[in-house]
C-alpha cells in the first residue's frame, strides 16, 4: 500500500529524472512533444542575454517516466512485456499496456487487495488517425481504499476488437456503448453493444478525426425528419 502517491499530488518518485529522454521510447505516447528538447531555461531577470528580448516559449509540463513506482513494478512482474510504459504527467500516473493483457490487468487491479481499484471513473477513446494502432483506449480508475486515481491506456488497431470491461465494472456498459457509437470501436464480450446517443441506423462515427464537423448522415435525415433537401 503506498501512501505517498496520492492522486493530484505530483508523483514523488524520481524528481530529478524529469529531463531525461521522456516519452520518446514509448510507442503509446501521444504525438511527440513539439517543445524543443533543449529549450534554454529562462534565466531569472538577467537583462544580459539576447534571448531575454523575446522570452522563449515557456516550457510547459512534460511527461516523466515513473521510476520506482510500486504499482508499475508489480505490473511489470506480473505481465512482463504486456506493460509498455509507466509515465506521469502533472502528477497523474499513466500506465500503458497492450490490448492482449488489458482484461487481465484490469481484473487484477480490481480484485487485488493491495490496489483494489474498485471504481471505474471513466472510459473513453482517442483517435490517432494515421497510426498503425489507431485508437487509444483510456481508462481512469479510482480506489476508494487508497484514494488513488490512475489512468490506464491501451492502443488498438482500427479493426481490432477491444476486450470489454463490462464484466469487470458495470459502469463500462454504457461507456463502451458510447465509445462504440462515437468511434466505432468494437468491444468483445460486451453484453449489449449498440449505439447509445445516435440513432441505431446512423452511418459513421462522429468523434473520429476523419469525420468532419459538418458531416452528417444526410440519408438518415431525409428519411426520418422528412427534410428533402438537407443544407450542406
Amino acid at each position, binding site marked *: 500500500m503506498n501512501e505517498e502517491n496520492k492522486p493530484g499530488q505530483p508523483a514523488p518518485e524520481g524528481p530529478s529524472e524529469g529531463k531525461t529522454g521522456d516519452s520518446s521510447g514509448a510507442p503509446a505516447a501521444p504525438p511527440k512533444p513539439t517543445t524543443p528538447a533543449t529549450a534554454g531555461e529562462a534565466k531569472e531577470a538577467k537583462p544580459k542575454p539576447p534571448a531575454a528580448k523575446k522570452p522563449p516559449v515557456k516550457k510547459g509540463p512534460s511527461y516523466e517516466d515513473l521510476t520506482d513506482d510500486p504499482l508499475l513494478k508489480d505490473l511489470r512482474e506480473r505481465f512482463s512485456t504486456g506493460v509498455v510504459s509507466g509515465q506521469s504527467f502533472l502528477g497523474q500516473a499513466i500506465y500503458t499496456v497492450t490490448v492482449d493483457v488489458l482484461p487481465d490487468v484490469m481484473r487484477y487491479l480490481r480484485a487485488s487487495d493491495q490496489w483494489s481499484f474498485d471504481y471505474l471513473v471513466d472510459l473513453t477513446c482517442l483517435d490517432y488517425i494515421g497510426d498503425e494502432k489507431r485508437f487509444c483506449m483510456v481508462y*481512469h480508475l479510482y480506489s476508494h481504499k487508497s484514494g488513488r486515481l490512475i489512468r490506464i491506456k491501451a492502443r488498438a488497431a482500427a479493426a481490432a476488437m477491444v476486450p470489454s470491461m463490462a464484466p469487470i465494472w*458495470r459502469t463500462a456498459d454504457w461507456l463502451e456503448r458510447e465509445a462504440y457509437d*462515437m468511434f466505432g470501436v468494437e468491444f468483445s464480450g460486451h453484453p449489449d453493444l449498440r449505439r447509445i446517443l*445516435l440513432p441505431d441506423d446512423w452511418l459513421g462515427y462522429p468523434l473520429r478525426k476523419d469525420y468532419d464537423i459538418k458531416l452528417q448522415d444526410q440519408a438518415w435525415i431525409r428519411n426520418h425528419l422528412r427534410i428533402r433537401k438537407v443544407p450542406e
Partner: protein
Amino acid sequence: MDEPTILDAQELEINMGPQHPATHGVLRIKLKLDGERVLDADCVIGYLHRGVEKISENRTYTKCLPYYDRTDYIAAVSNALGYVLGVEKMMEIEVPERAVYIRVMMTEFNRIASHLVWLGTHAMDIGALTVFLYCFREREEILKLFEDLFGARLTTHAFRIGGLWMDLPPGFEEAARRFIDDFPTKVDEYEQLLTNNRIWLDRTKGVGVISGEEAIDFGLSGPPLRGSGVPYDVRRARPYGGYDQFEFDVPVGEHGDTYDRYLIRMEEMRQSRRIIQQTLDRLPGGPIRGKVPRIIKPSVGEYYSAIEGPRGELGYYIVSDGSAVPFRVRIRPPTFINLQALKRMVKGALVADVIAIIGTLDVVLGEIDR
C-alpha cells in the same frame, strides 16, 4: 374461444417519455410491466445530442467554454470549472486568490440553486406541489445574483481561464449575505413540509435501494453514491480550486434509498451555505484574473480534472497536441453514468416509483446527451 387481446398479455411494454413531464427532459424509458410491477427498463437517450465533444475539437481552448454551460444547464456556473482548472494546470497559470474565492462562492450558490430545482421537481413528481413554489422562490434570488455578476441567469459563461471576467458588482456581497442569512430558515421550511410527512416517507423510504458495493460497481457518484454510505466527494478526495481551505461536512446516508438521498441533498445545501459564509468572511482583495497568454496553447500532454458537481463527479479529460485547439476534451458526465443504474433500481418496483427514482437520480438530459 377468442383470440388473446392486449388485456390477456402477461407482460406489457410501454414507453415512458420522451414527452413526459416527470422524466425531466427528453428521456424515454421502455418499461416492461407485469401489472404495476416493473420487470425491466431500457433507457433510450440521445435526443439532445449536440456533439459538444466534437465541437470542442474545432474551437480554441477559450471558445469551448460557453458550450459547457449548455451541457448541464441547471448547474451552468460550476460546469466549466473543471475544464478551466484543467487548462490552467496545463498552462501553469496562477489564479489570484480573490478569483479562487469567488469561484468557490458561485459554485456553491450554484449547488444550492441546482438542489432547489431538484427538490422542487422531485417533490412535485411525487405529489407535493407546494415545495416547488417555495424552492423556486429562493432559486430566483440566486439567479438574480448570477445575473448581477455574470449578466445572465442560466447560460452564464461564468469562469474564464485564469480567473473571472468581472469583479463583484457593488452591493453583491450584501445581497449574498442577506440570502445566506435567511437561507437556513428556508431549508427548515422545506424540511417541515417533507421530512416527517407521512406521504413523503411512504413514497421515498425503501424506494430505489442500492447498496454501497453496487453503487461503486455502477460508478455512481454524487448524492446517489453517498446515499449508499460511500463518503466519496471529489472536493474531499482530490481537493481542487481552493476547496481545501474551507470547512464543510460530507453527509453520508445509510440505507441507499430515495429518502436518504433526499436528506443528503438537504444537508448539502446547508453545507454549501456554510462554505459561502466562509468565502464572504475571508474574501481577499486584489485582481480577479491572472496573467494569461493571449493564445492558450498547452504543451503536449493530458490532464484529468474533476469537480464535485451538484450531481456527482464531473470530469474533463483534456488532451493537448500542442496546438491552440484541444485534441480531445472528454466530459465525464455524472448523470449519464448515474442513469445507468436506473435499470437496476426500478426492477421490481411499482410504476409510480419509477418517477421517484428518476427524480432521486437528478438527471439532466442536456448533460447525458451532450
